[in-house]
């Protein structure tokens, strides 16, 4: 009475084969620079054009120094604040628009055009946007100031870019505005991946649009949502181009994000690559921890349960085999 052996192992090698191009390209083009960076965090490499460096006596000196630096601490706080103010509205709006645009029942006319338009801010380079917004909020004369005067909201021109909170708010807004279209598109692509039979079944059962969205669309979007959350988290923590170009971290370091801080360590004259690398590694750790948390929260509970069941079965099989053999 032989048991049928389930042949699933033979395909495993394709897993390796298919991954080879990625791995190769990665090792050559990304791994080396990153590795180099990690090592530098422990050395004293700084200054222009130097290529030799030594590991420092206290290998963690750079790390300690960075953690103590007030600008770094500020940058962490700023990054969190700006990211939160940017991401939450962005995700909500993107979800809302996704719901509207994938609503089978109430088709919005011109959906196609809208989707295209909403993505547009993502196409312009950050430099251009930074200039435009800088000009919009010009002081003492500028379009927004003029608007305020017109609407009677202020009698003297307001310097938006000098106040810490408005500056942060504007940076958050710019980030929001640049990315909401893209998030929306990603979510819509995800929705298009949901099996339409689910939707048909729901309609037959008489569900309202809202019910469909909350009980079918959202849960099925879990995998894509995880992607959005994680990449936004990572992208947000690494927010660089707008804070750098718009106000260069000002006023008074209130829009200084961690990436800008790192950049300044490396490129504002002293080329302190070692400190920049150490700060990058610290940031990496923080992001890793946060992502791990996200992964855990959004893990596919059913799949996890299944894995557990499979493990139990395997254990039982083994025990039975041993028992039978004994």
């Amino acid at each position, binding site marked *: 009475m032989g048991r049928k052996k389930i042949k699933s192992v033979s395909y495993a090698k394709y*897993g390796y084969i298919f991954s080879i191009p990625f791995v190769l390209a990665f090792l050559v083009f990304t791994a080396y620079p990153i590795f180099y960076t990690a090592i530098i965090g422990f050395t004293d490499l700084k200054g222009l054009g130097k290529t030799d460096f030594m590991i420092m006596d206290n290998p963690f000196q750079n790390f300690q120094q960075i953690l103590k630096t007030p600008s770094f601490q500020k940058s962490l706080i700023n990054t969190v604040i700006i990211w939160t103010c940017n991401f939450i509205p962005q995700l909500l709006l993107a979800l809302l628009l996704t719901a509207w645009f994938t609503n089978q029942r109430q088709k919005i006319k011109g959906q196609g055009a809208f989707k295209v338009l909403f993505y547009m801010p993502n196409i312009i380079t950050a430099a251009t946007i930074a200039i435009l917004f800088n000009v919009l909020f010009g002081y003492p004369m500028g379009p927004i100031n003029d608007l305020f005067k017109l609407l009677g909201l202020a009698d003297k021109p307001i310097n938006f870019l000098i106040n810490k909170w408005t500056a942060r708010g504007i940076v958050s807004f710019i980030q929001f505005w640049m990315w909401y279209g893209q998030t929306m598109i990603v979510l819509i692509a995800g929705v298009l991946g949901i099996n339409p039979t689910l939707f048909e079944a729901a309609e037959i059962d008489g569900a309202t649009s809202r019910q469909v969205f909350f009980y079918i669309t959202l849960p099925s979007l879990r995998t894509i949502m995880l992607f959005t959350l994680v990449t936004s988290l990572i992208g947000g923590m690494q927010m660089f181009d707008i804070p750098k170009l718009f106000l260069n971290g000002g006023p008074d370091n209130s829009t200084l994000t961690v990436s800008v801080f790192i950049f300044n360590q490396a490129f504002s004259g002293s080329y302190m690559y070692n400190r920049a690398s150490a700060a990058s590694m610290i940031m990496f750790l923080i992001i890793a921890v946060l992502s791990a948390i996200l992964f855990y929260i959004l893990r596919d509970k059913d799949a996890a349960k299944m894995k557990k069941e499979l493990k139990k079965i395997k254990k039982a099989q083994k025990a039975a085999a041993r028992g039978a053999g004994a």
Partner: protein
Amino acid sequence: MKKTLKHEPIAGRTITRVIKYIVCITLAILSIMPFWIMLMNATRNTYEIQQSSISLVPSSYLLNNFKVFEGKSFNPLVGFKNSFIIAAGSTLLNVYFSSLTAYALVVYHWKLRQPFFTFIMAVLMVPAQVSSIGFYQFMYRIGWTNSFLPLVLPAMAAPAVVFFMRQYLLGALSIDIVNSARIDGANEFYTFNRIVLPIMKPAIATQAIFSFVGSWNNLFMPLILLTDKKNYTMPIMVSLLRGDIYRTEFGAVYLGLSLTVLPLFIVYFALSKYIIAGVALGSMKE
């Protein structure tokens, strides 16, 4: 199959409709605004722009600004060609190999699968600026300057795209499809190329757009690596226009920027069909 359901009052629905339209139109205007400004500025001259950076109406210097191009040996056609080669090349490699890798992560059960995925995620989290120094120094050392290769090849290793494709496959691909293909005698490559890839069209289209835009707008790495005039991409040429501190021809700069964005629109429109149309999934054989 549109049934009007009794428990949704018509008045409520109309109000919702109107709100939706208002919101969408407002957002649309907000999104279009910078482009409009850019286009308008492309028709103005430097001094007009310095006086008032934003204008909603065009001026008459468009041809003038084109002439500035000639004066500065700015050849948009060359720029387009180079940008296109790099962007298209990197997008194709990016999308194809990321899908391939994601497929490997989802469909096959192999020992290193989970660690490999974690590893990819880890790579994603390292801030980009710092690794780029090492990268371009490395390129200089192996003599790959003034070649498009360092700008195209690294696209094969794109963790974020792999991540996205993987998530998408997890949600959209049923292993039964693969199994039925295997039963039909298809080999793995055939299955991937002919059966799975079409299923991934929305994901591919989405990532293709992002990848193309990203590569097209990428300024820094090409700027450092491509020093020969005939290899310049559009963003490089536009940045050259801004070189003279006190003699920058802003009108021409905006014109250059507008020209740079134009092809992106075209590509976007071409690919957005896939997202809008909603490719029918569930090619399950029932």
